């Protein structure tokens, strides 16, 4: 196994190897709709949605250090805005605003980003605990108002979305949604990678580590928090819009529910907060737990999730990636625990 032998101080996770693994993973994912059952395809699509949620929450919380408990609001608003555009009649909008799905999804995501852009300067007057609970309250307000606006959201009955992208007999709507989700996930991951490896990511990490110190060195905290918040909300919005048009049914009670925030948190914390690879490990494990364990633990899934995030954050704060990192990557991880800069130089 020459592949797994390393000289002292050398890392196995060179950039080229990691990128190669990424390409292999994507190639495998492309074959999924043709080689597995519809339900398995749907399951893996859900996994990709978790990856997007995790990567986006990690950008805001793990890198910029802003623990938002309102991520579900951006997921849900992306879902609703895109659904209004593909299925306007169900919300009483004129049929003339109807747009094709491929246009509606980015607009849904933009709507989420716009909400973040408007709310950001106000909510970032809060820091620490106040920010966390402020975002929780914000998401609760949005959920309550949307639930009350029965005309727009269908209230507790829910909202049925019309979309059919099936191509002939061979490729079903779910399969097409799978490919769209895969493309969106790859785009999310690549863009986030560029952000965190670039100067913007450095600014985010600086305000995470010590906001006052960064500020005194000329790093504008609000600017980097806003970058993280808007980008993170945009990606969460895409995830929501895709999920809405895959499941073809959304409901203010469940699509805007705190559950999606919980899922984002669990994915990131299991994988390793503030590490780039963390959310992939986290989403994989979470998918296994969500489906494998639900057969065993039945109705206790939430409690198991709660116990897992408590145990991980106390005893293994660097997550699953931290474990892998210890064995494969290098001895000296940086504060973020992500791929070290010296590794990249190789």
């Amino acid at each position, binding site marked *: 196994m020459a592949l797994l032998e390393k000289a002292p101080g050398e890392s196995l996770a060179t950039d080229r190897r990691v990128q190669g693994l990424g390409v292999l993973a994507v190639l495998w994912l492309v074959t999924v709709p043709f080689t597995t059952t519809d339900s398995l395809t749907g399951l893996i699509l859900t996994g990709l949605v978790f990856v997007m949620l995790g990567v986006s929450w990690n950008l805001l919380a793990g890198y910029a250090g802003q623990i938002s408990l309102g991520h579900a609001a951006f997921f849900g608003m992306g879902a609703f805005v895109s659904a209004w555009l593909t299925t306007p009649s169900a919300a009483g909008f004129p049929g003339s605003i109807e747009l094709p799905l491929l246009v509606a999804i980015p607009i849904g995501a933009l709507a989420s980003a716009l909400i973040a852009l408007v709310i950001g300067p106000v909510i970032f*007057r809060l820091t620490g605990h106040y920010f966390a609970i402020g975002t929780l309250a914000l998401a609760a307000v949005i959920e309550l108002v949307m639930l009350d606006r029965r005309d727009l959201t269908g209230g507790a009955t829910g909202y049925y979305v019309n979309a059919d992208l099936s191509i002939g007999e061979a490729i079903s709507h779910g399969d097409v949604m799978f490919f769209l989700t895969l493309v969106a996930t790859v785009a999310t991951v690549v863009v986030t990678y560029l952000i965190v490896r670039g100067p913007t990511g450095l600014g985010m990490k600086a305000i995470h580590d010590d906001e006052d110190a960064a500020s005194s060195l000329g790093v504008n905290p609000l600017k980097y928090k806003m970058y993280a918040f808007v980008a993170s909300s945009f990606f969460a919005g895409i995830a929501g819009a895709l999920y809405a048009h895959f499941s073809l049914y959304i409901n203010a009670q469940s699509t805007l529910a705190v559950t999606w925030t919980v899922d984002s*948190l669990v994915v990131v914390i299991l994988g390793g907060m503030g590490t780039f690879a963390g959310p992939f490990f986290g989403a994989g494990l979470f998918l296994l737990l969500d489906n494998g364990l639900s057969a065993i633990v039945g109705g*206790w899934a939430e409690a198991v*999730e709660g116990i897992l995030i408590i145990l991980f*954050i106390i005893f293994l704060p660097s997550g699953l990636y931290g474990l892998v990192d210890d064995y494969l990557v290098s001895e000296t991880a940086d504060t973020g625990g992500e791929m070290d800069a010296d590794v990249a130089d190789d």
Partner: protein
Amino acid sequence: MVATDLLTQSVVNGLLLGGIYALAALGLSLVFGIMDIVNLAHGHMLMVGAYIAILLFTATGITPVVGMLLAMVLMFGLGVLLQKVLLKHVVDEGIEQPIIVLFGLALILQNLGRVLLGGDARTADIGLPGSGIDVGLAYMSFPRTVTFVIAVLLIVLTWAFLQYTKTGQAIRATAQNRTAAKYMGIDTDQIYVITLGIGTALAGAAGALLSMLFPIDPYVGWSYLLKTFAVVVLGGVGSVIGTLVGGLVLGVSENLGALYLGGGYRNVVSLLIFLVVLLVKPEGLFGGSGGGE
């Protein structure tokens, strides 16, 4: 226009409910002020306290007023255990870890409530003889009056405990300056254990009182967390008087919101008040010191 008697009745009901909100918020405020932790599971602890009172009442017919005492004892134990087993690892370690640990605990308690008691809302009757009081323009119903009096009594007792007992003084000293308190020979680890115990017990008491007025289901935790935090923000962290006033303000404004905008907006009103106060005057209307970022 809304009729005057309806308006005064809403205000009176709001004041009576506000007393319980203040009691619930006092526990949250205490923990925040002293340990610098926002207990994200506070609303879920309140839910557990309510269920203890409800179960005792449905099983034996014992009034929730007594059930409240049992809930307080059990919840004190839960708080002590929580600090000794979990939170001692993460307290004073920045904000990420405590937030996530308590968020996880909230999920566990919610799941426990749902699996053990089902998703349906339950309530308890006060189970005591007595009649309400007519105060001219409004009527103070018996359960609302009793729960208000008990809530205010517990707030006064907690205040007296903090003010006049040795432990209370040690708690306040720790809140002011943890390091200095340690140098004075105060066992601050023990203070944290007691503080979380009291905070949790107060949440349990408030839950038991609320179970006599409103149906409780396993999902009420989040909304009570936000309501109680709104009271803490209104009153200022660590201020007992501020918390009491904040509770009354929230109770009244919620009822007026429901009256003028419709029942669906009851919670929206409290959340908006909370966000606005947080943004405009984050140190609270009565600006206490200590705690917070």
